[in-house]
Protein backbone atom coordinates (compact mmCIF):
# COMPACT_ATOMS: atom_id res chain seq x y z
CA UNK A 1 0.00 0.00 0.00
CA UNK A 2 2.31 2.72 1.10
CA UNK A 3 6.00 2.91 1.65
CA UNK A 4 6.20 5.36 4.50
CA UNK A 5 7.49 4.08 7.77
CA UNK A 6 7.50 6.11 10.93
CA UNK A 7 10.99 6.84 12.19
CA UNK A 8 14.30 5.61 10.92
CA UNK A 9 14.28 2.12 12.31
CA UNK A 10 16.47 -0.30 10.38
CA UNK A 11 15.68 -3.83 11.37
CA UNK A 12 18.43 -6.10 12.56
CA UNK A 13 19.34 -8.26 15.51
CA UNK A 14 22.58 -6.79 16.82
CA UNK A 15 23.14 -6.50 20.54
CA UNK A 16 22.19 -2.84 20.34
CA UNK A 17 18.87 -3.71 18.73
CA UNK A 18 18.12 -6.07 21.56
CA UNK A 19 18.90 -3.72 24.42
CA UNK A 20 16.04 -2.44 26.51
CA UNK A 21 14.96 0.98 25.16
CA UNK A 22 15.03 2.55 28.58
CA UNK A 23 18.65 1.51 28.98
CA UNK A 24 19.52 2.74 25.51
CA UNK A 25 17.96 6.13 26.12
CA UNK A 26 19.50 6.48 29.56
CA UNK A 27 22.94 5.46 28.32
CA UNK A 28 22.63 7.83 25.40
CA UNK A 29 21.96 10.71 27.72
CA UNK A 30 24.94 9.80 29.89
CA UNK A 31 27.25 9.55 26.90
CA UNK A 32 25.95 12.84 25.50
CA UNK A 33 26.67 14.52 28.81
CA UNK A 34 30.14 12.99 28.73
CA UNK A 35 30.72 14.38 25.24
CA UNK A 36 29.81 17.85 26.39
CA UNK A 37 31.83 17.72 29.56
CA UNK A 38 35.11 17.28 27.71
CA UNK A 39 36.41 20.84 27.71
CA UNK A 40 37.03 22.56 24.42
CA UNK A 41 40.72 23.03 24.33
CA UNK A 42 43.79 22.27 22.28
CA UNK A 43 45.50 20.33 24.99
CA UNK A 44 46.51 16.74 24.61
CA UNK A 45 44.25 15.13 27.17
CA UNK A 46 40.90 16.50 26.00
CA UNK A 47 41.80 15.76 22.41
CA UNK A 48 42.70 12.21 23.26
CA UNK A 49 39.49 11.83 25.21
CA UNK A 50 37.37 13.14 22.38
CA UNK A 51 39.15 11.08 19.76
CA UNK A 52 38.87 7.92 21.80
CA UNK A 53 35.18 8.60 22.20
CA UNK A 54 34.86 8.88 18.45
CA UNK A 55 36.75 5.64 17.96
CA UNK A 56 34.53 3.97 20.54
CA UNK A 57 31.45 5.21 18.79
CA UNK A 58 32.63 3.96 15.43
CA UNK A 59 33.34 0.56 16.94
CA UNK A 60 29.83 0.62 18.37
CA UNK A 61 28.42 1.42 14.98
CA UNK A 62 30.29 -1.35 13.23
CA UNK A 63 29.12 -3.82 15.84
CA UNK A 64 25.50 -3.05 15.04
CA UNK A 65 26.07 -3.97 11.38
CA UNK A 66 24.38 -0.79 10.30
CA UNK A 67 26.27 0.52 7.29
CA UNK A 68 28.57 3.33 8.38
CA UNK A 69 27.52 5.26 5.32
CA UNK A 70 23.93 5.51 6.59
CA UNK A 71 25.09 6.85 9.90
CA UNK A 72 27.31 9.42 8.25
CA UNK A 73 24.34 10.50 6.17
CA UNK A 74 22.91 11.83 9.39
CA UNK A 75 25.64 14.44 9.27
CA UNK A 76 24.42 15.85 5.97
CA UNK A 77 21.87 18.30 7.37
CA UNK A 78 24.41 19.94 9.60
CA UNK A 79 27.30 20.23 7.18
CA UNK A 80 26.53 23.90 6.88
CA UNK A 81 26.61 24.37 10.65
CA UNK A 82 29.84 22.43 10.95
CA UNK A 83 31.55 24.49 8.28
CA UNK A 84 30.32 27.71 9.79
CA UNK A 85 31.57 26.77 13.25
CA UNK A 86 34.88 25.70 11.79
CA UNK A 87 35.37 29.06 10.09
CA UNK A 88 34.41 31.02 13.19
CA UNK A 89 36.99 29.16 15.25
CA UNK A 90 39.58 29.77 12.60
CA UNK A 91 38.96 33.50 12.56
CA UNK A 92 38.59 34.20 16.21
CA UNK A 93 41.19 32.08 17.93
CA UNK A 94 44.38 34.08 18.14
CA UNK A 95 46.40 32.01 20.56
CA UNK A 96 49.18 29.58 19.96
CA UNK A 97 51.47 29.51 16.98
CA UNK A 98 50.83 30.58 13.45
CA UNK A 99 50.46 27.65 11.12
CA UNK A 100 51.23 29.59 7.98
CA UNK A 101 52.32 33.13 7.35
CA UNK A 102 49.54 35.64 7.61
CA UNK A 103 47.57 35.82 4.35
CA UNK A 104 46.20 39.04 3.09
CA UNK A 105 42.52 38.65 2.10
CA UNK A 106 41.03 41.23 -0.19
CA UNK A 107 37.42 42.21 -0.44
CA UNK A 108 37.62 43.91 -3.77
CA UNK A 109 35.43 44.42 -6.77
CA UNK A 110 37.28 41.68 -8.59
CA UNK A 111 37.15 39.21 -5.76
CA UNK A 112 33.44 39.90 -5.12
CA UNK A 113 32.67 39.51 -8.79
CA UNK A 114 34.69 36.30 -8.95
CA UNK A 115 32.95 34.95 -5.85
CA UNK A 116 29.52 35.70 -7.26
CA UNK A 117 30.40 34.04 -10.55
CA UNK A 118 31.76 31.04 -8.74
CA UNK A 119 28.67 30.69 -6.55
CA UNK A 120 26.50 30.72 -9.67
CA UNK A 121 28.78 28.12 -11.25
CA UNK A 122 28.63 26.04 -8.07
CA UNK A 123 24.85 26.10 -7.96
CA UNK A 124 24.53 25.13 -11.60
CA UNK A 125 27.02 22.29 -11.42
CA UNK A 126 26.29 20.82 -8.02
CA UNK A 127 23.52 18.58 -9.39
CA UNK A 128 26.07 16.74 -11.48
CA UNK A 129 28.63 16.20 -8.79
CA UNK A 130 28.55 12.92 -6.91
CA UNK A 131 30.25 13.83 -3.68
CA UNK A 132 28.21 16.90 -2.78
CA UNK A 133 29.60 17.44 0.68
CA UNK A 134 33.19 17.40 -0.52
CA UNK A 135 32.17 19.71 -3.34
CA UNK A 136 30.66 22.05 -0.77
CA UNK A 137 33.90 22.13 1.25
CA UNK A 138 35.79 22.72 -1.97
CA UNK A 139 33.48 25.63 -2.76
CA UNK A 140 34.06 27.21 0.63
CA UNK A 141 37.79 26.83 0.12
CA UNK A 142 37.60 28.50 -3.27
CA UNK A 143 35.66 31.45 -1.86
CA UNK A 144 38.54 32.12 0.50
CA UNK A 145 41.14 31.43 -2.14
CA UNK A 146 39.59 34.02 -4.41
CA UNK A 147 39.77 36.59 -1.65
CA UNK A 148 43.46 35.90 -1.30
CA UNK A 149 44.25 35.97 -5.01
CA UNK A 150 42.33 38.95 -6.34
CA UNK A 151 43.37 42.30 -4.90
CA UNK A 152 42.28 44.33 -7.93
CA UNK A 153 40.18 47.38 -7.16
CA UNK A 154 40.44 46.72 -3.47
CA UNK A 155 37.71 48.03 -1.17
CA UNK A 156 39.02 46.70 2.10
CA UNK A 157 41.17 43.88 3.32
CA UNK A 158 41.84 41.80 6.37
CA UNK A 159 44.54 39.48 7.47
CA UNK A 160 43.81 35.81 7.83
CA UNK A 161 45.89 34.38 10.61
CA UNK A 162 45.51 30.68 11.10
CA UNK A 163 46.71 29.56 14.47
CA UNK A 164 47.24 25.99 15.44
CA UNK A 165 45.04 26.43 18.46
CA UNK A 166 42.29 27.62 16.14
CA UNK A 167 42.62 24.58 13.94
CA UNK A 168 42.66 22.27 16.93
CA UNK A 169 39.65 23.87 18.53
CA UNK A 170 37.76 23.80 15.25
CA UNK A 171 38.58 20.15 14.82
CA UNK A 172 37.55 19.50 18.38
CA UNK A 173 34.11 21.01 17.99
CA UNK A 174 33.70 19.15 14.73
CA UNK A 175 34.43 15.88 16.53
CA UNK A 176 32.06 16.69 19.32
CA UNK A 177 29.13 17.45 17.03
CA UNK A 178 29.87 14.36 14.98
CA UNK A 179 29.87 12.21 18.10
CA UNK A 180 26.51 13.57 19.20
CA UNK A 181 24.93 12.97 15.82
CA UNK A 182 26.24 9.46 15.42
CA UNK A 183 25.21 8.46 18.95
CA UNK A 184 21.69 9.76 18.42
CA UNK A 185 21.43 8.12 15.02
CA UNK A 186 22.48 4.81 16.51
CA UNK A 187 19.61 5.09 18.91
CA UNK A 188 16.99 5.88 16.30
CA UNK A 189 18.30 3.28 13.85
CA UNK A 190 18.16 0.46 16.34
CA UNK A 191 15.02 1.27 18.25
CA UNK A 192 11.45 0.99 17.00
CA UNK A 193 9.34 4.06 17.60
CA UNK A 194 7.00 2.22 19.96
CA UNK A 195 9.97 1.18 22.03
CA UNK A 196 11.45 4.66 21.95
CA UNK A 197 8.11 5.94 23.14
CA UNK A 198 8.21 3.52 26.03
CA UNK A 199 11.76 4.56 26.85
CA UNK A 200 10.74 8.21 26.98
CA UNK A 201 7.74 7.38 29.11
CA UNK A 202 9.88 5.41 31.53
CA UNK A 203 12.40 8.20 31.84
CA UNK A 204 9.68 10.76 32.46
CA UNK A 205 8.04 8.62 35.14
CA UNK A 206 9.88 10.26 38.06
CA UNK A 207 8.15 13.49 37.05
CA UNK A 208 4.88 11.97 38.25
CA UNK A 209 5.92 13.01 41.71
CA UNK A 210 5.50 16.64 40.77
CA UNK A 211 2.14 15.84 39.21
CA UNK A 212 3.29 15.87 35.59
CA UNK A 213 0.73 13.75 33.63
CA UNK A 214 3.29 11.32 32.24
CA UNK A 215 0.74 8.70 31.13
CA UNK A 216 -1.20 11.26 29.18
CA UNK A 217 1.97 12.57 27.53
CA UNK A 218 2.99 9.05 26.59
CA UNK A 219 -0.44 8.38 25.05
CA UNK A 220 -0.31 11.65 23.13
CA UNK A 221 3.14 10.77 21.85
CA UNK A 222 1.96 7.34 20.79
CA UNK A 223 -1.08 8.73 18.98
CA UNK A 224 1.07 11.33 17.25
CA UNK A 225 3.42 8.65 15.98
CA UNK A 226 0.49 6.57 14.79
CA UNK A 227 -1.07 9.43 12.86
CA UNK A 228 1.93 11.01 11.16
CA UNK A 229 1.98 8.67 8.14
CA UNK A 230 -1.80 8.86 7.83
CA UNK A 231 -1.72 12.66 7.92
CA UNK A 232 1.03 12.74 5.32
CA UNK A 233 -1.06 10.59 3.00
CA UNK A 234 -4.14 12.73 3.57
CA UNK A 235 -2.18 15.93 3.01
CA UNK A 236 -0.93 14.58 -0.27
CA UNK A 237 -4.47 13.77 -1.33
CA UNK A 238 -5.65 17.26 -0.51
CA UNK A 239 -2.72 18.77 -2.37
CA UNK A 240 -3.69 16.77 -5.43
CA UNK A 241 -7.35 17.72 -5.09
CA UNK A 242 -6.49 21.41 -4.83
CA UNK A 243 -3.97 21.08 -7.65
CA UNK A 244 -6.87 19.82 -9.73
CA UNK A 245 -8.62 23.10 -8.93
CA UNK A 246 -5.72 25.14 -10.20
CA UNK A 247 -3.45 25.44 -7.19
CA UNK A 248 0.07 25.60 -8.53
CA UNK A 249 2.89 26.79 -6.35
CA UNK A 250 5.22 27.25 -9.27
CA UNK A 251 3.08 29.47 -11.44
CA UNK A 252 1.46 31.81 -8.89
CA UNK A 253 1.98 35.19 -7.25
CA UNK A 254 2.79 35.65 -3.57
CA UNK A 255 -0.74 36.77 -2.75
CA UNK A 256 -2.19 33.76 -4.50
CA UNK A 257 0.20 31.49 -2.63
CA UNK A 258 -1.29 32.58 0.68
CA UNK A 259 -4.81 31.57 -0.25
CA UNK A 260 -3.43 28.37 -1.72
CA UNK A 261 -1.68 27.46 1.52
CA UNK A 262 -4.96 28.11 3.33
CA UNK A 263 -6.66 25.71 0.93
CA UNK A 264 -4.26 23.06 2.16
CA UNK A 265 -4.24 23.90 5.85
CA UNK A 266 -7.95 24.23 6.53
CA UNK A 267 -9.00 20.84 5.19
CA UNK A 268 -6.20 19.21 7.19
CA UNK A 269 -7.37 20.99 10.31
CA UNK A 270 -10.98 20.02 9.70
CA UNK A 271 -10.04 16.39 9.23
CA UNK A 272 -7.95 16.49 12.39
CA UNK A 273 -10.70 18.03 14.52
CA UNK A 274 -13.24 15.48 13.37
CA UNK A 275 -10.66 12.83 14.06
CA UNK A 276 -10.12 14.01 17.65
CA UNK A 277 -13.82 13.87 18.33
CA UNK A 278 -14.25 10.39 16.86
CA UNK A 279 -11.10 9.13 18.49
CA UNK A 280 -12.16 10.43 21.88
CA UNK A 281 -15.43 8.55 21.58
CA UNK A 282 -13.74 5.39 20.38
CA UNK A 283 -11.20 5.42 23.18
CA UNK A 284 -13.85 6.07 25.80
CA UNK A 285 -16.03 3.23 24.57
CA UNK A 286 -13.07 0.88 24.70
CA UNK A 287 -12.65 1.62 28.37
CA UNK A 288 -9.89 4.21 28.31
CA UNK A 289 -9.91 6.41 31.38
CA UNK A 290 -7.28 9.15 31.56
CA UNK A 291 -4.92 8.50 34.40
CA UNK A 292 -6.26 5.03 35.22
CA UNK A 293 -3.84 2.17 35.54
CA UNK A 294 -3.36 0.03 32.42
CA UNK A 295 -1.47 -3.11 31.61
CA UNK A 296 0.78 -3.24 28.61
CA UNK A 297 1.06 -5.61 25.65
CA UNK A 298 4.77 -4.95 25.15
CA UNK A 299 7.08 -6.56 27.63
CA UNK A 300 10.38 -5.05 28.58
CA UNK A 301 12.79 -7.07 30.65
CA UNK A 302 16.13 -5.77 31.84
CA UNK A 303 18.83 -8.29 31.08
CA UNK A 304 22.42 -8.66 32.14
CA UNK A 305 23.60 -6.95 28.97
CA UNK A 306 21.46 -3.94 29.83
CA UNK A 307 23.02 -3.60 33.25
CA UNK A 308 26.51 -3.87 31.81
CA UNK A 309 25.71 -1.15 29.31
CA UNK A 310 24.56 1.27 31.97
CA UNK A 311 27.56 0.50 34.14
CA UNK A 312 29.96 1.01 31.26
CA UNK A 313 28.34 4.30 30.30
CA UNK A 314 28.63 5.58 33.84
CA UNK A 315 32.25 4.43 33.94
CA UNK A 316 32.96 6.40 30.77
CA UNK A 317 31.28 9.45 32.22
CA UNK A 318 33.31 9.02 35.36
CA UNK A 319 36.52 8.75 33.39
CA UNK A 320 35.73 11.92 31.48
CA UNK A 321 34.93 13.83 34.65
CA UNK A 322 38.18 12.56 36.13
CA UNK A 323 40.22 13.81 33.18
CA UNK A 324 38.58 17.15 33.50
CA UNK A 325 39.09 17.49 37.19
CA UNK A 326 42.69 16.38 36.91
Amino acid sequence: MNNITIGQYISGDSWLHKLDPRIKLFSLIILLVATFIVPVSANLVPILTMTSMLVLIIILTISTKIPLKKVLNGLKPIVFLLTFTFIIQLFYVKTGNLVVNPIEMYISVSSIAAIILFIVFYNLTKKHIKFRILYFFFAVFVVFLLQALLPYVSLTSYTLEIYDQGLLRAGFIFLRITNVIILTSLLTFTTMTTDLNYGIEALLKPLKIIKVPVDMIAMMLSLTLRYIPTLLIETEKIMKAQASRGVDFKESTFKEKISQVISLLIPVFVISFKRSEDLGNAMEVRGYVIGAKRTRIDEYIISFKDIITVVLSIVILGAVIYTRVM
Partner: protein
Amino acid sequence: MIKVKDLSFSYNGHDEALKNVTFDIKKGSWISILGHNGSGKSTLSKLMVGLLTPSKGHIEIDGLLLNDENLLEIRKKIGIVFQNPDNQFVGVTVKHDIAFGLENQRVPHNEMKEKINYYANLVGMQDFLNKEPHQLSGGQKQRVAIAGALAMEQDVLILDEATSMLDPEGTLEIVNLIKKLNQTYHKTIITITHDLSFATQSDELIVLKGGEMILKGTPKEVFKEEDVLKSSHLELPFELSVYNEALKDEKISKKVVEALWAFNSKM
Protein backbone atom coordinates in the same frame (compact mmCIF):
# COMPACT_ATOMS: atom_id res chain seq x y z
CA MET B 1 -30.74 -8.87 26.07
CA ILE B 2 -31.39 -5.22 25.32
CA LYS B 3 -34.45 -3.29 26.35
CA VAL B 4 -34.95 0.25 25.13
CA LYS B 5 -37.93 2.09 26.57
CA ASP B 6 -39.31 5.51 25.65
CA LEU B 7 -35.84 6.70 24.77
CA SER B 8 -35.61 10.38 23.89
CA PHE B 9 -32.68 12.70 23.36
CA SER B 10 -32.14 16.27 22.34
CA TYR B 11 -28.79 17.87 21.47
CA ASN B 12 -29.75 21.43 22.14
CA GLY B 13 -32.68 21.33 24.50
CA HIS B 14 -35.56 21.71 22.11
CA ASP B 15 -35.25 19.71 18.88
CA GLU B 16 -35.51 16.05 19.69
CA ALA B 17 -33.08 13.90 17.78
CA LEU B 18 -34.79 10.82 19.17
CA LYS B 19 -38.42 10.56 20.30
CA ASN B 20 -39.87 7.82 22.47
CA VAL B 21 -38.11 4.92 20.85
CA THR B 22 -39.01 1.55 22.31
CA PHE B 23 -37.81 -1.91 21.27
CA ASP B 24 -36.31 -5.14 22.57
CA ILE B 25 -33.45 -7.12 21.15
CA LYS B 26 -33.22 -10.83 21.89
CA LYS B 27 -29.90 -12.39 22.72
CA GLY B 28 -28.10 -13.81 19.70
CA SER B 29 -30.15 -11.96 17.12
CA TRP B 30 -28.99 -9.61 14.38
CA ILE B 31 -30.93 -6.37 14.17
CA SER B 32 -30.45 -3.68 11.56
CA ILE B 33 -31.43 -0.12 12.33
CA LEU B 34 -32.15 1.79 9.17
CA GLY B 35 -32.74 5.43 8.51
CA HIS B 36 -31.72 8.41 6.44
CA ASN B 37 -29.01 10.78 7.60
CA GLY B 38 -30.42 12.72 10.50
CA SER B 39 -32.99 10.09 11.43
CA GLY B 40 -31.39 9.56 14.82
CA LYS B 41 -29.52 6.31 14.17
CA SER B 42 -26.13 7.57 15.32
CA THR B 43 -27.71 9.23 18.33
CA LEU B 44 -29.28 5.91 19.22
CA SER B 45 -26.01 4.01 18.96
CA LYS B 46 -24.19 6.58 21.08
CA LEU B 47 -26.91 6.37 23.70
CA MET B 48 -26.61 2.59 23.78
CA VAL B 49 -22.90 2.72 24.61
CA GLY B 50 -23.23 5.49 27.11
CA LEU B 51 -21.56 8.24 25.13
CA LEU B 52 -24.72 10.29 25.52
CA THR B 53 -27.23 10.49 28.35
CA PRO B 54 -30.91 10.27 27.40
CA SER B 55 -33.23 13.12 28.27
CA LYS B 56 -36.04 10.65 28.78
CA GLY B 57 -36.46 6.91 28.96
CA HIS B 58 -33.88 4.25 29.72
CA ILE B 59 -31.76 1.45 28.30
CA GLU B 60 -31.22 -1.90 29.91
CA ILE B 61 -28.42 -4.17 28.78
CA ASP B 62 -28.44 -7.74 30.06
CA GLY B 63 -30.48 -6.64 33.05
CA LEU B 64 -28.20 -3.72 33.87
CA LEU B 65 -29.71 -0.26 33.73
CA LEU B 66 -27.46 2.10 31.80
CA ASN B 67 -26.50 5.18 33.79
CA ASP B 68 -23.47 7.38 34.49
CA GLU B 69 -22.30 5.31 37.44
CA ASN B 70 -22.00 1.90 35.83
CA LEU B 71 -20.43 2.89 32.51
CA LEU B 72 -17.44 0.65 33.09
CA GLU B 73 -19.73 -2.31 33.66
CA ILE B 74 -21.80 -1.47 30.62
CA ARG B 75 -18.73 -1.23 28.43
CA LYS B 76 -17.93 -4.80 29.29
CA LYS B 77 -21.24 -5.82 27.81
CA ILE B 78 -21.57 -3.72 24.69
CA GLY B 79 -19.01 -2.58 22.15
CA ILE B 80 -19.14 -0.49 18.99
CA VAL B 81 -17.30 -0.12 15.71
CA PHE B 82 -17.64 3.26 14.05
CA GLN B 83 -17.75 4.40 10.46
CA ASN B 84 -14.32 5.88 9.82
CA PRO B 85 -11.65 3.18 9.82
CA ASP B 86 -8.89 5.68 10.50
CA ASN B 87 -10.57 7.55 13.32
CA GLN B 88 -10.82 4.64 15.70
CA PHE B 89 -7.49 2.92 15.05
CA VAL B 90 -5.53 3.83 18.15
CA GLY B 91 -2.56 1.50 18.12
CA VAL B 92 0.69 1.98 16.25
CA THR B 93 0.31 -1.53 14.83
CA VAL B 94 -2.55 -4.02 14.48
CA LYS B 95 -1.32 -5.88 17.54
CA HIS B 96 -1.27 -2.72 19.63
CA ASP B 97 -4.72 -1.68 18.49
CA ILE B 98 -6.37 -4.95 19.38
CA ALA B 99 -4.53 -4.77 22.71
CA PHE B 100 -5.83 -1.29 23.49
CA GLY B 101 -9.15 -2.35 25.00
CA LEU B 102 -7.48 -5.21 26.86
CA GLU B 103 -4.87 -2.88 28.32
CA ASN B 104 -7.67 -0.63 29.52
CA GLN B 105 -9.32 -3.60 31.17
CA ARG B 106 -6.00 -4.43 32.86
CA VAL B 107 -5.90 -7.91 31.37
CA PRO B 108 -2.68 -9.64 32.43
CA HIS B 109 0.03 -9.89 29.82
CA ASN B 110 -0.11 -13.58 28.94
CA GLU B 111 -3.84 -13.61 28.63
CA MET B 112 -3.61 -10.56 26.37
CA LYS B 113 -1.26 -12.26 23.97
CA GLU B 114 -3.55 -15.25 23.69
CA LYS B 115 -6.65 -13.19 23.09
CA ILE B 116 -4.97 -11.01 20.49
CA ASN B 117 -3.85 -14.03 18.51
CA TYR B 118 -7.24 -15.70 18.81
CA TYR B 119 -9.31 -12.73 17.71
CA ALA B 120 -6.89 -11.67 15.01
CA ASN B 121 -7.32 -15.17 13.63
CA LEU B 122 -11.09 -14.96 13.86
CA VAL B 123 -11.20 -11.87 11.67
CA GLY B 124 -8.47 -13.09 9.35
CA MET B 125 -5.80 -10.56 10.27
CA GLN B 126 -3.33 -12.90 12.00
CA ASP B 127 -0.64 -12.25 9.37
CA PHE B 128 -0.90 -8.51 9.81
CA LEU B 129 -0.15 -8.12 13.50
CA ASN B 130 2.93 -5.98 12.94
CA LYS B 131 1.52 -3.88 10.15
CA GLU B 132 0.90 -0.20 10.65
CA PRO B 133 -2.56 1.23 9.89
CA HIS B 134 -1.52 3.20 6.82
CA GLN B 135 -0.43 -0.07 5.23
CA LEU B 136 -3.94 -1.51 5.51
CA SER B 137 -7.06 -1.16 3.39
CA GLY B 138 -10.30 0.19 4.85
CA GLY B 139 -11.79 -3.27 5.11
CA GLN B 140 -8.71 -4.56 6.91
CA LYS B 141 -8.80 -1.68 9.38
CA GLN B 142 -12.45 -2.34 10.14
CA ARG B 143 -11.69 -6.01 10.70
CA VAL B 144 -9.05 -4.98 13.21
CA ALA B 145 -11.60 -2.72 14.91
CA ILE B 146 -13.98 -5.65 15.14
CA ALA B 147 -11.23 -7.87 16.56
CA GLY B 148 -10.52 -5.21 19.15
CA ALA B 149 -14.17 -5.10 20.16
CA LEU B 150 -14.45 -8.91 20.19
CA ALA B 151 -11.35 -9.20 22.35
CA MET B 152 -13.18 -7.33 25.07
CA GLU B 153 -15.64 -10.21 24.98
CA GLN B 154 -18.75 -8.14 25.12
CA ASP B 155 -22.03 -9.83 24.38
CA VAL B 156 -23.33 -7.17 22.05
CA LEU B 157 -21.56 -5.54 19.13
CA ILE B 158 -22.87 -2.44 17.37
CA LEU B 159 -21.58 -1.65 13.89
CA ASP B 160 -22.44 1.99 13.22
CA GLU B 161 -22.24 2.45 9.44
CA ALA B 162 -19.10 0.35 9.59
CA THR B 163 -19.09 -0.29 5.83
CA SER B 164 -20.22 3.11 4.53
CA MET B 165 -16.73 4.25 3.66
CA LEU B 166 -15.55 0.94 2.21
CA ASP B 167 -15.43 -0.33 -1.34
CA PRO B 168 -17.54 -3.37 -2.28
CA GLU B 169 -14.67 -5.78 -1.55
CA GLY B 170 -14.20 -4.35 1.92
CA THR B 171 -17.95 -4.33 2.55
CA LEU B 172 -18.20 -7.98 1.59
CA GLU B 173 -15.38 -8.89 4.02
CA ILE B 174 -17.27 -7.21 6.82
CA VAL B 175 -20.68 -8.62 5.94
CA ASN B 176 -19.26 -12.14 5.84
CA LEU B 177 -17.56 -11.59 9.16
CA ILE B 178 -20.79 -10.35 10.73
CA LYS B 179 -22.64 -13.40 9.45
CA LYS B 180 -19.99 -15.63 10.97
CA LEU B 181 -20.12 -13.81 14.30
CA ASN B 182 -23.87 -14.04 14.49
CA GLN B 183 -24.45 -17.50 13.11
CA THR B 184 -21.39 -19.38 14.33
CA TYR B 185 -20.54 -17.46 17.47
CA HIS B 186 -24.06 -16.33 18.41
CA LYS B 187 -23.10 -12.74 19.09
CA THR B 188 -25.88 -10.22 19.38
CA ILE B 189 -25.28 -7.82 16.53
CA ILE B 190 -26.78 -4.43 15.81
CA THR B 191 -25.94 -2.94 12.42
CA ILE B 192 -26.76 0.67 11.77
CA THR B 193 -26.89 1.42 8.09
CA HIS B 194 -28.62 3.11 5.23
CA ASP B 195 -27.69 0.25 2.93
CA LEU B 196 -30.66 -2.05 2.70
CA SER B 197 -28.94 -4.90 0.89
CA PHE B 198 -26.96 -5.36 4.09
CA ALA B 199 -30.13 -5.39 6.08
CA THR B 200 -31.83 -8.16 4.16
CA GLN B 201 -29.78 -10.67 6.05
CA SER B 202 -30.67 -9.51 9.53
CA ASP B 203 -33.28 -11.17 11.67
CA GLU B 204 -35.17 -7.98 12.31
CA LEU B 205 -35.26 -4.42 11.05
CA ILE B 206 -36.07 -1.15 12.75
CA VAL B 207 -36.63 1.92 10.60
CA LEU B 208 -36.15 5.40 12.02
CA LYS B 209 -37.39 8.61 10.51
CA GLY B 210 -37.04 12.03 12.05
CA GLY B 211 -36.10 10.49 15.38
CA GLU B 212 -39.10 8.19 15.53
CA MET B 213 -39.43 4.49 14.99
CA ILE B 214 -41.77 4.02 12.06
CA LEU B 215 -41.32 0.38 11.16
CA LYS B 216 -40.25 -2.74 12.94
CA GLY B 217 -40.32 -6.30 11.72
CA THR B 218 -38.67 -9.00 9.71
CA PRO B 219 -37.02 -7.94 6.45
CA LYS B 220 -39.86 -9.43 4.44
CA GLU B 221 -42.44 -7.49 6.42
CA VAL B 222 -40.56 -4.23 6.30
CA PHE B 223 -39.65 -4.33 2.63
CA LYS B 224 -43.29 -4.64 1.66
CA GLU B 225 -43.73 -1.07 2.88
CA GLU B 226 -41.94 0.39 -0.11
CA ASP B 227 -43.75 3.72 0.10
CA VAL B 228 -42.96 4.19 3.76
CA LEU B 229 -39.33 3.41 3.05
CA LYS B 230 -39.25 5.83 0.15
CA SER B 231 -40.62 8.59 2.33
CA SER B 232 -37.72 8.01 4.70
CA HIS B 233 -35.26 8.47 1.82
CA LEU B 234 -34.38 4.81 1.87
CA GLU B 235 -34.05 3.19 -1.49
CA LEU B 236 -34.73 -0.45 -1.90
CA PRO B 237 -31.76 -2.13 -3.49
CA PHE B 238 -32.21 -3.07 -7.11
CA GLU B 239 -33.01 -6.72 -6.46
CA LEU B 240 -35.64 -5.86 -3.90
CA SER B 241 -37.34 -3.34 -6.15
CA VAL B 242 -37.45 -5.96 -8.86
CA TYR B 243 -38.98 -8.39 -6.41
CA ASN B 244 -41.60 -5.90 -5.22
CA GLU B 245 -42.56 -4.95 -8.79
CA ALA B 246 -42.77 -8.60 -9.79
CA LEU B 247 -44.93 -9.33 -6.77
CA LYS B 248 -47.43 -6.71 -7.84
CA ASP B 249 -47.46 -7.69 -11.49
CA GLU B 250 -49.80 -10.54 -12.40
CA LYS B 251 -48.12 -11.10 -15.73
CA ILE B 252 -45.07 -12.39 -13.96
CA SER B 253 -45.34 -16.00 -12.91
CA LYS B 254 -45.34 -16.95 -9.25
CA LYS B 255 -42.37 -19.21 -9.72
CA VAL B 256 -40.36 -16.25 -10.93
CA VAL B 257 -41.45 -14.19 -7.93
CA GLU B 258 -40.42 -16.92 -5.51
CA ALA B 259 -37.09 -17.34 -7.22
CA LEU B 260 -36.60 -13.57 -6.95
CA TRP B 261 -37.16 -13.70 -3.22
CA ALA B 262 -34.73 -16.60 -2.95
CA PHE B 263 -32.17 -14.43 -4.74
CA ASN B 264 -32.68 -11.70 -2.18
CA SER B 265 -32.19 -13.99 0.79
CA LYS B 266 -29.08 -15.38 -0.82
CA MET B 267 -27.52 -11.95 -1.18
